[in-house]
């Protein structure tokens, strides 16, 4: 490769775990580094300022990875700048792709969130009732600004056009290596697709009854992970632990079921699924033995939409 591939990375409304997933590549990263030039990685890795990114010519960056959801004016601004500067923009990780864990904030209004964060929490003492303002003047002369906190969480594609999506919270590092190599070698699917092996978590799960010569039976119990340890090597869903493996992309290699934890869907929906939560409702309800069991499923919105609420058809709680 003659020219180095120019890469930009931005951590938006996320936790930094997706940054770590790249750093975790270790040897693979060392292998690809000679081919990469990181022109922007804020705020975690490189000391490059927003104004430096803004000054770069349009479409001068080969690949932009955007991690985290969009809730603040600042995040929206950088999303637009990244879109202008990058030839290919990737929603990196499930927060950017579908809203992720912070997306569950869409079950509450901005007012409710402010009330909890700035008034009701045990450690808060706010007698003057101060909440964040986008502008304030200190000592009559210093103007300070804060980015606007929007009403709702949005995934990246509700702000700008997105070329590719990668699921996972964070994407699994072995898969990150493959994805980065695919980008480097230009071996990418049609724009708008998810970068995925296309297998469901169940397909790569050792607990799958099909791999043990057994069929699936109707589910006869609803269990939570606190209800004792599941049987060794047996399908969690079959035992009543609400595992979302059947409808989730399995690029993690069925990480959670390996350690007795049901899949919660962080890999994102299988290709062709428009609304992860609704598909999960259909799959789980259909596999239950009776209606009473369906009623026992705890907190269904936060179970089925744990990673995807802002990208769902309804998107948020209706006022």
């Amino acid at each position: 490769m003659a020219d180095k591939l120019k890469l930009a990375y931005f951590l938006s409304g996320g936790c930094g775990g997706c940054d770590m997933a790249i750093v975790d590549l270790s040897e693979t990263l060392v292998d690809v580094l000679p081919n990469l030039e990181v022109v922007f990685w804020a705020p975690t890795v490189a000391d490059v300022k927003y104004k430096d990114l803004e000054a770069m010519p349009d479409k001068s960056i080969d690949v932009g990875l955007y991690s985290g959801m969009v809730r603040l004016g600042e995040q929206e601004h950088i999303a637009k700048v990244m879109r202008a500067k990058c030839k290919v923009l990737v929603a990196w990780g499930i927060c950017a792709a579908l809203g992720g864990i912070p997306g569950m904030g869409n079950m509450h209004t901005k007012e409710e969130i402010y009330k909890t964060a700035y008034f009701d929490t045990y450690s808060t003492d706010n007698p003057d009732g101060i909440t964040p303002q986008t502008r304030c003047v200190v000592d009559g002369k210093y103007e300070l600004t804060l980015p606007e906190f929007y009403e709702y969480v949005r995934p990246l594609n509700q702000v700008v056009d997105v070329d590719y999506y990668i699921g996972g919270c964070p994407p699994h590092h072995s898969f990150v290596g493959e994805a980065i190599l695919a980008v480097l070698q230009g071996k990418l699917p049609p724009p708008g697709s998810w970068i995925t092996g296309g297998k469901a978590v169940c397909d790569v799960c050792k607990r799958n009854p099909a791999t043990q010569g057994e069929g699936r039976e109707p589910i006869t119990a609803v269990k939570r992970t606190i209800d004792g340890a599941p049987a060794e090597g047996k399908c969690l869903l079959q035992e009543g632990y609400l595992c979302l493996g059947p409808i989730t992309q399995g690029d993690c290699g069925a990480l959670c079921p390996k350690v007795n934890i049901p899949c919660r869907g962080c890999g994102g929906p299988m290709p062709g699924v428009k609304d992860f939560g609704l598909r999960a409702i259909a799959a789980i309800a259909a596999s239950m033995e009776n209606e009473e069991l369906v009623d026992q499923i705890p907190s269904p919105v936060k179970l089925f939409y744990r990673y995807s609420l802002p990208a769902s058809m309804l998107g948020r709680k209706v006022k």
Partner: protein
Amino acid sequence: MSDWKPNIVVFACNWCTYQGADLAGSLRYDYPSTINIIRVPCSGRVEPEFIVAALKNGADGVFVGGCHPGDCHYKEGNYKAIRRFILLKRVLTSMGIEPERVRLEWISGSEGKRFAEVMAEFDRTIKEIGPNPVGRDGNGR
């Protein structure tokens, strides 16, 4: 709001509720003009996506009509339908949508009169609860 008329979507199983609607028609039982029937091969074919898509596209009420227990042409479609429906309704309720906006009933091909009555009743319920709130705050999503 006085001239507001609800828009009601009815997913009717071809083997029962749809025939019931047909019978209601040939026996000249009136049912409200707010009812828009979509014929489906079985109540089990009605995915949660269909119901939410209807709500999102402006339906004020969504009704699913299937065969009585034991009568489903495909044996278990209606059992599957009701389990999904119960779970979807719980989710919709948590998401701020009135549970009365969605309803599932078993109506057979011979129950023309009952079809008309249930439709009239559902229409009244939707008129009482008013327009669908999805998109009410104008963000248009």
